[in-house]
């Protein structure tokens, strides 16, 4: 097995012992990125001039990684997978990127996303759709699909993503890898292209829970440039990751699991099996109910809030100070032409929906009611967290769909099973997806979500469950 495929701790030890060099790892990572680009289309930009870094005591030093192309990277093309930014080269680094630079991590590429991170399929980026390494006739999910595919294929040991609805945790499920978004504000949002500011989270993909813990440990921290970030210096996600979890309490959401039982028996029995693992670990698991009206309203609430916030956040894309400018006879024409040509039809539709929701006559019934429903959901879950350390749910309702598969967006399956992860973003809760098994040679997953600022506890539970499950990621199954 190549050192690039090992855990971050093992790679670090090998680098320290001189068994492998940072240069060799970077070169191998770049080679894999090129080798699999035609097959997967994970990258917008592969950084062929990426350099090795000195090895320090930091576990990430000298090891390659990739970042979603909505992380601002100084001097490196950053497109958000949109034509409107197809020529944009930032003049500053996102705080998370700066922190990884300080850790001597080696950025080898920028990954494809759904245009402006608005989507859940990774099929709408301006450089084409991302394919699922498990089965290239299927999608990987989105919006952080390029990062998910790159980790699932073993191109990089970890990659950065962003999560506004479920954009890390759903593709992690479809790719058979770990995907985590920590508590809102644990990682500074400075330099992440804003989609819906009250819901946007940064996070990462990795092959294991412990690898993800090392990455988030290095990305987190209070930042003067993001007033919603907070001091987490007392949080160490690695330190207690192996602690005994007996006595911990989890609940599962009855309405979601009932729907899974109705619609996908194999997935359901896998989930029940995971609950048995919890019990074997000494974790007490109970069923709890959340009003089905609240749960069915979660996705519409997400759409209303995110589309409305996105219309405002993306109003800076005019083509004039930066971006792919189109000509016009006056500044208004320049902006209208730039935005009409620069945004895809799907993005313009979402913006129109946002505009509709924000019209004076609709604001109260649509936008404010969505914000109210968000509160009701968050308050119910927070109330349950008083009795529990977190909740455990299936991460999706099915395996990754085929590219042409249609799903009824008004069905209970869609509203309850395919979109419940958004609750984690509503409340800013730390939330992690880990693989739980396979159906028809495709991965499925569970998600564990906990109270705000209890990130370490969620990592601890996920790590112990991961050991019980014993899932082998795709990239470790074949000889390269």
């Amino acid at each position, binding site marked *: 097995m190549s050192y690039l495929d090992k855990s971050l701790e093992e790679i670090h030890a090998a680098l320290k012992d001189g068994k492998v060099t940072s240069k060799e790892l970077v070169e191998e990572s770049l080679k894999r990125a090129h080798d699999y680009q035609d097959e997967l289309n994970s990258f917008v930009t592969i950084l062929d001039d990426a350099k090795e870094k000195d090895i320090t005591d930091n576990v990430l030093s000298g090891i390659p990684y990739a970042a979603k192309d909505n992380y601002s990277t100084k001097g490196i093309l950053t497109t958000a997978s949109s034509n409107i930014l197809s020529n944009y080269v930032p003049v500053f680094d996102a705080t998370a990127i700066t922190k990884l630079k300080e850790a001597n991590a080696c950025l080898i590429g920028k990954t494809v996303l759904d245009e402006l991170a608005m989507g859940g399929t990774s099929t709408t980026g301006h450089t084409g759709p991302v394919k699922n390494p498990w089965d290239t006739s299927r999608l990987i999910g989105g919006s952080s699909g390029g990062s998910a595919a790159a980790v699932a294929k073993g191109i990089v040991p970890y990659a950065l993503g962003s999560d506004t609805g479920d954009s890390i945790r759903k593709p992690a499920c479809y790719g058979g890898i770990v995907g985590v978004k920590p508590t809102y504000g644990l990682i500074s949002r400075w330099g992440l292209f804003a989609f819906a500011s009250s819901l946007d989270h940064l996070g990462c993909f990795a092959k294991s829970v412990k690898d993800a813990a090392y990455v988030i440990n290095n990305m987190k921290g209070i930042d003067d440039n993001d007033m919603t970030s907070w001091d987490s210096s007392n949080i160490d996600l690695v330190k207690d990751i192996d602690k005994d979890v007996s006595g911990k309490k989890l609940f599962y959401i009855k309405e979601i699991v009932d729907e899974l039982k109705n619609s996908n028996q194999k997935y359901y029995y896998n989930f029940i099996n995971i609950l048995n693992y919890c019990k074997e670990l000494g974790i007490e698991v109970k069923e709890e109910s959340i009003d089905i009206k609240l749960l069915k309203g979660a996705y519409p609430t997400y759409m209303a809030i995110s589309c409305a916030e996105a219309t405002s956040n993306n109003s800076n894309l005019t083509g004039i100070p930066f971006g792919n400018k189109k000509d016009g006879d006056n500044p208004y024409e*320049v902006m209208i032409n730039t935005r009409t040509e620069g945004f895809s039809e799907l993005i313009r539709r979402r913006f129109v*929906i946002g*505009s509709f929701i924000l019209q004076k006559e609709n604001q109260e019934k649509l936008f404010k009611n969505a914000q109210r429903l968000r509160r009701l959901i968050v308050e119910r879950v927070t109330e349950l967290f008083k009795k529990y350390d977190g909740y455990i749910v299936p991460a999706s309702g099915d395996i990754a769909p085929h590219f042409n598969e249609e799903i009824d967006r008004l069905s209970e399956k869609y509203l309850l099973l395919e979109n419940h992860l958004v609750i984690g973003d509503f409340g800013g809760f730390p939330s992690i997806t880990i693989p739980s098994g396979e159906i028809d040679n495709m991965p499925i997953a569970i998600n564990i979500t906990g109270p705000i600022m209890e990130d370490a506890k969620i990592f601890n539970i996920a790590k112990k469950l991961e050991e019980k499950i014993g899932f082998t990621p795709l990239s470790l199954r074949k000889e390269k």
Partner: protein
Amino acid sequence: MKKITKENIQDYALKLMFKMKEDEYDTFEKEFETILKHMDLIGQIDGIENVEPMTFPFKKDVILREDVVTSTLTTEDAIKNAKDVIYDEVKVPRVVGGEE
């Protein structure tokens, strides 16, 4: 709730400084039917109008940084990504006045 029309769509689009194209309205109208049904789900909670809207994930004291004067962007960097630049400034078509 008001039904969406082609005129509404173009009006909302123009408020956001872009246009919808002629062949895009059909898809949009179909999608909008689903969106409106989704939005109906939001209003189905009894007494929802009495709940305070939530604009932030959780309660948190906001600590503002010290108000120290600092420079974050040089002129060179500020114009680096602009397509049209003249005399270190971003060039746009004339906004006021007569013919050029």
